[in-house]
């Protein structure tokens, strides 16, 4: 939770909740999409937020930047402290100043995130001049853009700047987006599945780039991903999200060596691997994430869990400390101790 962070936090999210009221035709009920989420991101730290589609990762990321429309149907509560300022309480005008200079975001589909009819160099320049609030000489801006593009690993900058998004590859587009995100020199980057749409080889390049930017600039990253391989490569700390809540939080080393929640363990085990032998079967987690409107009572994971007991069907567990880790599971002690074999005998669950 927010209380035991070693380094002073750059970002501190406290009791963030997002709920949505369905239209009156479909009942007009409140659906909790993100439920009481609290965590921190330290300076220069990479925190990975992992979970399946529909678990609320992207909403959490967008809520941090204030990108969720605040209207009568969507309700966002809680605080988002960035560098001592509560972004959740800022009016839209001031929030716009913070976006880009305090915190930036990059998205999954890099080609869609760029304007198709504007040359990419111009798009980077736009982000840069917005930060300064004035236009420098054309020459100075071009030089700055070229410099920034080189920092994100683009070599033939002169030529690249003149191209349109459709003329360059997906990996190159993602580098351009990273350049745009960094143009305002933010201290935090929220990266929502930044490499999911890319080939594995290009994914590796982009991840290497993000890791080196963190090292060199002291940039903090909140990396949202469903790929545990990506999390293992990048994370200092891992947050596991399920059904809108954080169910496990741990330093990456501990998490991958001995996860404390059966869901975290299931996610790790489901990744197809090449470094171990070809196991006959992959250990899949049966079923899928429950819809927010029809979450089961008690622990939301219990219908899919190989360890469920009676208590799991009645009481939702709290996120409690367990050594360096935190887990929201009634039986986390057993998960920690036992159970690499947990998901091997899961055939009857489901």
């Amino acid at each position, binding site marked *: 939770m927010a209380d035991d962070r070693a380094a002073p936090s750059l970002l501190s999210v406290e009791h963030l909740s997002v709920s949505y009221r369905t239209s009156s035709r479909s009942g007009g009920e409140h659906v909790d999409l993100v439920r009481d989420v609290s965590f921190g991101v330290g300076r220069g730290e990479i925190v990975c937020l992992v979970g399946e589609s529909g678990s609320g990762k992207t909403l959490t990321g967008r809520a941090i930047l204030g990108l969720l429309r605040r209207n009568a149907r969507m309700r966002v509560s809680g605080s988002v402290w960035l560098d001592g300022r509560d972004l959740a309480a800022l009016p839209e005008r001031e929030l716009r100043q913070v976006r880009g200079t305090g915190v930036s975001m990059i998205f999954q589909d890099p080609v869609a995130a760029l304007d198709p009819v504007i040359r990419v160099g111009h798009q980077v320049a736009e982000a840069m001049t917005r930060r300064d609030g004035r236009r420098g000489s054309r020459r100075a801006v071009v030089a700055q853009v070229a410099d920034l593009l080189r920092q994100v690993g683009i070599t033939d900058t002169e030529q690249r700047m003149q191209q349109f998004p459709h003329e360059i590859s*997906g990996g190159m587009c993602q580098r351009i987006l990273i350049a745009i995100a960094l143009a305002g020199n933010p201290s935090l980057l929220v990266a929502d599945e930044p490499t999911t749409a890319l080939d594995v080889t290009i994914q590796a390049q982009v991840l290497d780039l993000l890791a080196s930017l963190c090292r060199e600039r002291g940039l903090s990253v909140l990396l949202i991903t469903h790929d545990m391989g990506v999390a293992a490569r990048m994370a200092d700390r891992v947050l596991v999200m399920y059904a809108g809540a954080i169910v496990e939080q741990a330093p990456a080393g501990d998490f991958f060596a001995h996860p404390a929640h059966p869901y975290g363990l299931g996610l790790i085990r489901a990744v197809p691997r090449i470094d171990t032998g070809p196991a006959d079967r992959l250990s899949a987690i049966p079923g899928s994430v429950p819809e927010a409107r029809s979450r089961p009572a008690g622990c939301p994971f219990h219908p899919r869990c190989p360890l469920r007991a009676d208590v799991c069907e009645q009481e939702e567990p709290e996120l409690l400390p367990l050594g360096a880790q935190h887990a929201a599971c009634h039986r986390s002690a057993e998960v920690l101790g036992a159970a690499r074999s947990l998901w091997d005998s899961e055939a009857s669950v489901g």
Partner: protein
Amino acid sequence: MASESLLTATGLVRHYRLRRRWWLGERHSVVKAVDGVTVEIAPGTTLGLVGESGCGKTTLGRLLLRLDQPTSGQVTFGGEDWLAKKGEQLRSARKDMQAIFQDPLGSLDPRRTVGNAIGEALTAHGLEPDRGARAQRVTELLQQVGLGADVAARYPHELSGGQRQRATIARAIAVGPKFIVCDEAVSALDVSVQAQIINLLSDLQDTMDVSYLFISHNLATVRHLASTVAVMYLGKIVEQAPADEIFTAPAHPYTVALLAAVPVPDPAASRAQAASGRLAGDPQSATALPSGCRFRLRCPRAAAICAEAEPPLSGQPGGHAVACHFPHS
């Protein structure tokens, strides 16, 4: 080996001519999407086809499915000349060859229920003309892919991504195919669901004795299904070997690089991997291939000869074949 093969493609080529008008006239260029590919798939086995976007793996799948016509080359399927089939003959033969694509929402009609979509596959091939028997068969198929009978009455948008992919699999197996092309069939799914679908495909192979061409950009997903793996780069197969050998003793520098790029859910291993070196840059354009070896501009082992002569795919048939002047050993 050759006699028992289900599908054999020999020297398959697909070139696309691009014509670009500009103010002084026209410019022509040729995209060599598939440039001389030979593959062989035995009954009940899986050929894993791996490569980056744009390497021609999808085009190869489309050529085998006859969704596109090859520029040259031969395909034999079930002992017959597959490319010579036309009209009604081709239509009825398609029953033996089905496909599963990446985006299940895109391959299911949004205005048809799942049961209706699967039923259509049956009626199109004149199977189960009786309504009641057809509904019964649809229910069986849904159960076979791990879906409840109630799914038959639902529309694609009501299902999760994993359920939708199961539905497209049910439709593909409805007509009892001998061969299924799975083009990035699990790439759009969450890892947990990905594992479910891979397991399902492997179970279906055991019960139905069907063969797969499993196309993916991720070598790790291929590992659990493939008996043979072919690695493709810019229209050519650069390495082909039994699955175990590809993973334990990769010979082509490109295969080695692909293996090193697969994310591993283990922090120490994955950081060691990152430190061991990466493949730089993007693949070259298929319209302007480099001289000699197509991979040489990104290859850490490239030498003078690589710019002069294109290495042929050499090796013993059915064994480990590699197209490189300086393979790893």
